[in-house]
């Protein structure tokens, strides 16, 4: 904790101005630089935020998996605090994906929602990690919350490819928005903007993670101090 706190503060101090500048640059590129998409029109610009959010949400769930595994092997609560922070951010960005998707789908597909593989997987994933957060809030002690949540974090992440595969078998194909390889490909300005957004969101996620992680560590310190004051003899 003593070593972590200044490190996290430094990360925040460095990342905050960088993310702020990059985010403005992203918005400028999205609204002023990239051309309109031929078939979908202006609404396609949602994708510059939608896809990076999805990537960052998955990154968050991956961090939960790694931190949970590390917690179970080392039994250091720091890892659990990190897993908790990453899970909250994962759920947040997943919600952004689920909200921005329909806004785009309504004009593009003519429907708010369709039971398609990627959409359904994202929704199921969101529900798995919401359950993870509910579990944390329902546990009887701090150690128990950490242990049980770590197991669910690991199992939930193992489940991701299975859910995706099963839903894909269940429902047909996703209209490909960004073609990978072959064909006309993407307009260079679009690709550059998209890459910039991906990079910015990754940094944005790191900044939020550092903030939430440090907040979690402070909460733990506070709980410890309160405990000590409640039982002065101990």
């Amino acid at each position, binding site marked *: 904790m003593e070593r972590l706190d200044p490190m996290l503060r430094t990360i925040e101090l460095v990342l905050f101005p960088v993310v702020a500048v990059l985010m403005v640059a992203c918005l400028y590129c999205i609204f002023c630089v990239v051309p309109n998409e031929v078939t979908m029109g202006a609404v396609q610009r949602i994708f510059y935020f939608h896809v990076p959010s999805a990537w960052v949400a998955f990154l968050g769930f991956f961090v939960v998996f790694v931190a949970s595994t590390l917690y*179970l092997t080392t039994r250091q609560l720091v890892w659990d605090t990190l897993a908790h922070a990453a899970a909250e951010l994962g759920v947040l960005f997943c919600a952004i994906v689920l909200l921005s998707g329909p806004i785009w789908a309504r004009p593009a597909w003519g429907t708010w929602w369709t039971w398609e593989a990627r959409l359904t997987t994202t929704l*199921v*994933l969101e*529900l*798995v990690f*919401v*359950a993870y957060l*509910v*579990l944390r809030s*329902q*546990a*009887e002690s701090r150690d*128990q919350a950490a*242990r*049980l949540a*770590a*197991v*669910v974090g*690991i*199992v*939930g992440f*193992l*489940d991701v490819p*299975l*859910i995706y*595969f*099963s*839903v894909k*078998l*269940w429902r047909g194909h996703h209209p490909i928005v960004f073609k990978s390889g072959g064909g006309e490909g993407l307009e260079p300005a679009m690709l550059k903007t998209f890459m910039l957004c991906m990079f910015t969101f990754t940094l944005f996620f790191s900044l939020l993670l550092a903030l939430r992680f440090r907040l979690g560590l402070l909460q733990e310190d506070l709980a410890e101090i309160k405990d000590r004051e409640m039982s002065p003899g101990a």
Partner: protein
Amino acid sequence: MPRWLAAGREVAPLNATPPALVICVKDLQQELKTRESFTAAFFFALLVQLVFSFAFDFQSLGLGFQDVGAGVLWITLTFSSILSLQNSFVIEREKNCLAALALCPCDPSSVFLGKFLANLIFVLAVQAFVLPISALFFGYDLAAVALPLSLVVVVNAAGFSALGTLFAAISVRTRRSELLLPLLLFPAATPVVIWGVKATRLCLAGRGLEAYEYLVGLSACFGAIFAVAGVLLFDYVLEE
């Protein structure tokens, strides 16, 4: 009794049966004595079917069991399994039997395997009663597809129970276990439900095994993955 057999019994009276089996038999015996869980799960399954027949109005819409049976079957199975999965650990909470289980002189994975086996047998027993009744309700000739259908149900119920046993053990440790188990289990068990429904639909439509054997294989993989995960992770769940 031959001398060598008698001698063997004296040396290892308890170690002869694997601990997982002992725990499974204990659970089943307890259930046979009280029949609490079975009665609840069975009548709950019947109620679900009743709600179904109101909700979809099969007769006036002209829907046959082969159209809706797969859905009816899987909703009944998952809902009634939740009850029994929950109960299999709630009974251990009384008089702190969970601590006793954790103190068992055996590997924690044996406790998981025992509970998993007992849960699976239980779910299948409920289905063995519910399936014929539902076929009767919806006027369907079950005998024609009994064998392939049993295969689909057994494999998918095994996958569902493997994950369900692990999550039931987790949720029973929390303050609101009844609330948490469905919340945890339903989204995570999506794959096995999707594959189960799909295979059941093909099976009820009278298609051959080759039409859905890949689905059964996938469900078997799901079961295997989470049975292994349960074996590896149960130690952490059981810990005080």
